[in-house]
């Protein structure tokens, strides 16, 4: 894969903007709650990441880090 992302679970508020804007639809809301009680976004198993960083740009909480391989 060209890229990968890391989501800071405690910053995420489950707003789903990254999910909406990921061109590869590789992010989904997980069933896991964080400490505040939000269902957090997570990278899908088998999803494809191009490292485009759209998710990181969209995230209002600056919770997503993107790595290019």
């Amino acid at each position: 894969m060209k890229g990968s992302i890391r989501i800071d679970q405690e910053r995420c508020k489950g707003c789903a903007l990254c999910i909406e804007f990921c061109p590869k639809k590789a992010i989904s809301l997980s069933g896991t709650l964080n400490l505040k009680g939000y269902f957090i976004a997570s990278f899908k198993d088998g999803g494809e990441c191009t490292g485009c960083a759209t998710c990181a740009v969209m995230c209002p909480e600056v919770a997503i880090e993107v790595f290019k391989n």
Partner: protein
Amino acid sequence: MKRLMSGNAALGEAAVLAGCTCYFGYPITPQNELTEYMAKRVPEAGGVFIQSESEIAAINMVLGASVAGARAMTSSSSPGMSLKQEGISYLAADELPAVVVDMVRGGPGMGNISPAQSDYFQATRGGGHGDYKTIVLAPGSVQELTEIVPLAFDLADKYRNPVIILGDGMLGQMMEPVSFDNIKPPKEYPKDYILTGAKGRPSRMVRSLLFDTKEEEEHNWKLFRKYQRMEQNEVRYDTFLLDDAEMVVIAYGIGARIAKGAIKRLRQENLKVGMIRPITLWPFPAKIIKEAAQNGAEFFVFEMSAGQMVEDVKLALEGKGHIHFYGRPGGVIPTPIELFRVISRHYYQSRRGKK
């Protein structure tokens, strides 16, 4: 200058700029960022911040600060607001100004932390015990939130009555560019009732215990006349494409924001749909709704609850005018596309009925 801020933080900044010197709060999602912001900002501005041991303590600290003449505020979300109702009733009975913020979440009970509009009745009907009302303001964007906060403090001081700001989880959490340039320093209000020590003047008393029934009745009528003045002078609303509308959407707060997106789509399809957005939920903008009914419009009430404001619309219409309703309770956030489909279905059905 514009800054990117969450609704909760922007609310806190606006409150400090509007002269709030006392903030007391107890954490609850989705309004935690407000308490967090105030913990830093209020002491900086020379005020008092206390994280209380409970919501009940917070509202009673507000009562104490208010009786001493300060601009005081507390905030919570739905379950915490239920706990605060006793204190709000006392504030209303004692005729003390205060601002209480409710960032509504899904309920009843513990519910969840998603945005909802299910506290409409609690906010607009007084909420606690006794014959009283609170002014209820419902902003629809983060910028409007910052404008409504100084207004809330002014109305509270003007009428000596608690004012509720009814937001929701989404408004508190969403981040938008906001400007604080229009917030002016607070006006001076005559404070001839506050308890500051009776040296050199007769002592004052602030109390709500009125054992004499005649005295209590007179106090109730006095409050009633005050509420009548609010109903005459403080109704606020916003309209959107209302002039030629055959169907008028009535929605408030973040619900109105979603509805606006739906209405833009409906207009692209040449469906004549407009909107009335109450900004004050109490006093309710009944007059403009009645006027729209006289022009032959039908009404579509949308709420993120199972149907609460729809009753006020019915009361406003006094039996004149047809009402459609769509609600999503439990913290579900409907999309503009969903609302577009529902409104167009009702629109075509009622048009077919007329032929």
